[in-house]
């Protein structure tokens, strides 16, 4: 009954415990990781908790308005500090505890050496619709 956004980062999150870049894994380990994520999403679809999810390209661009009649400014003096979101999933669950449980499970996806990657995931609640009763 509450929606949460699960964010997976390329960069910007604290380092994972099992912190080996994905390109250093074996192909089998990559496959196992991808498979884990797929099964995770499929299971959430079955429990009726899945809302949406997408993977994102690793490179994004910062953009801002630069005044009337001028083209927007892209990127800037801070490319090194920007977060990079690798992908997101929206879940709809009965409780905050359940959201934590699922995020923990996703963080346990296998990585190098077939061991859980223990990566940090960001869990953000959606601002809900105002309830009918507010007073």
């Amino acid at each position, binding site marked *: 009954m509450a929606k949460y956004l699960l964010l997976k980062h390329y960069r910007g999150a604290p380092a994972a415990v099992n912190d080996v870049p994905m390109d250093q894994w074996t192909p089998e380990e990559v496959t196992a990781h991808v498979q884990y994520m797929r099964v995770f999403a499929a299971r959430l*679809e079955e429990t*009726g908790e899945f809302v949406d999810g997408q993977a994102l390209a690793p490179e994004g661009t910062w953009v801002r308005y630069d005044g009337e009649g001028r083209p927007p400014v892209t990127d800037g003096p801070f490319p090194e500090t920007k977060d990079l979101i690798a992908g997101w999933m929206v879940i*709809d669950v009965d409780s905050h505890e359940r959201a934590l449980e699922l995020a923990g499970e996703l963080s346990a996806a296998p990585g190098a050496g077939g061991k859980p990657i223990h990566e940090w995931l960001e869990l953000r609640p959606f*601002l*809900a*619709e105002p*309830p*009918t*009763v507010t*007073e």
Partner: protein
Amino acid sequence: MTPAVDEALLRGLTPTVLAILVRRGADFAAAEDAVQEALVEALRVWPADPPRDPKGWLVTVAWRKFLDATRADAARRRREDIVDEEPEPGQAVGVDDTLQLYFLCAHPSLTPSSAVALTLRAVGGLTTRQIAAAYLVPEATMAQRVSRAKRTVSGVRFDQPGDVATVLRVLYLVFNEGYSGDVDLAAEAIRLTRQLAAVIDHPEVAGLLALMLLHHARRASRTAPDGSLVPLAEQDRGRWDTRLIAEGVEILQAALARDRLGEFQAQAAIAALHADAPTAEETDWVQIVEWYDELVRLTDSPLVRLNRAVAVGEADGPRAGLAELASLDEGLPRYAAVSAYLHERDGDLASAARLYAEAAAKATNLAERDHLTRQAARLNTRLRG
């Protein structure tokens, strides 16, 4: 011109038709599927060819759908034998059957979101698409929720008495959800609670119905045209629906007269006192505090104590309210908002501004966050000026 299908009539018949199928020997999950198919068929066929007996039509079609599905499923062939021995269609159905449906759909083995989904579909007659739209989730997700819910209760016997309190909790969850999509869930919750009140004589059912009516009566005044929140004290009381208020008060008084007080009756009593005040200043806060005392006794909920602190602040002044607040956990939702409000009334604008900003950061919905941010901005502007 073809007349539109009377959806309210269709939905009102849903639990009765479902109960008839179950009584004739269909298992709950299969019967529910069949009724849904019959509803969809009705929406398609009725505009051009309205039936003389809508209920009979639905029973016949749903039963045929059920038989088709059963025949298609070899494992269920045995059930056809039972079917043959059943009496002819059109038998009267007891009110208890509808009540059993409410109990089943709110069964304690279901999670809140499953219970809500199943209630809206099996008792409310909403389509999966409508429920999904109301809860802003994909239709496939809602379909899974409904079918899991049906599997969960599939072993539950239909004749077991259930717990009214769980049913009321589910209906109140539906009511509180607000509305998106094409179904007004608050109105739907009221409809289902009315229907429940008609088949069961229980003061808390009446209490919940009264509470919903009293809240619903004030809905139009609660938000400005731009969607922003309007606090109770600033609401245009001329826009309150006096007909709904009168009905809510009447139902509440009859319930209270039976002297079996419960949480919903006490909440409705507070809502009634608000609805009864011609102006915010004339609100009977002393009596509201007394009702909060009852609620604390009934629920011992920290959130009720928080709301009580607001009422005490109005009845005995902001200092008294702040004293009440001091004994509560600062981590409670809306604690900062309440504290901000009481500090402002006490004249401590700097603290109030800081607390409003803190409350805004903790708000769980957009309208509330914007409202609290505006409060903080208003005080900060005043403090600078």
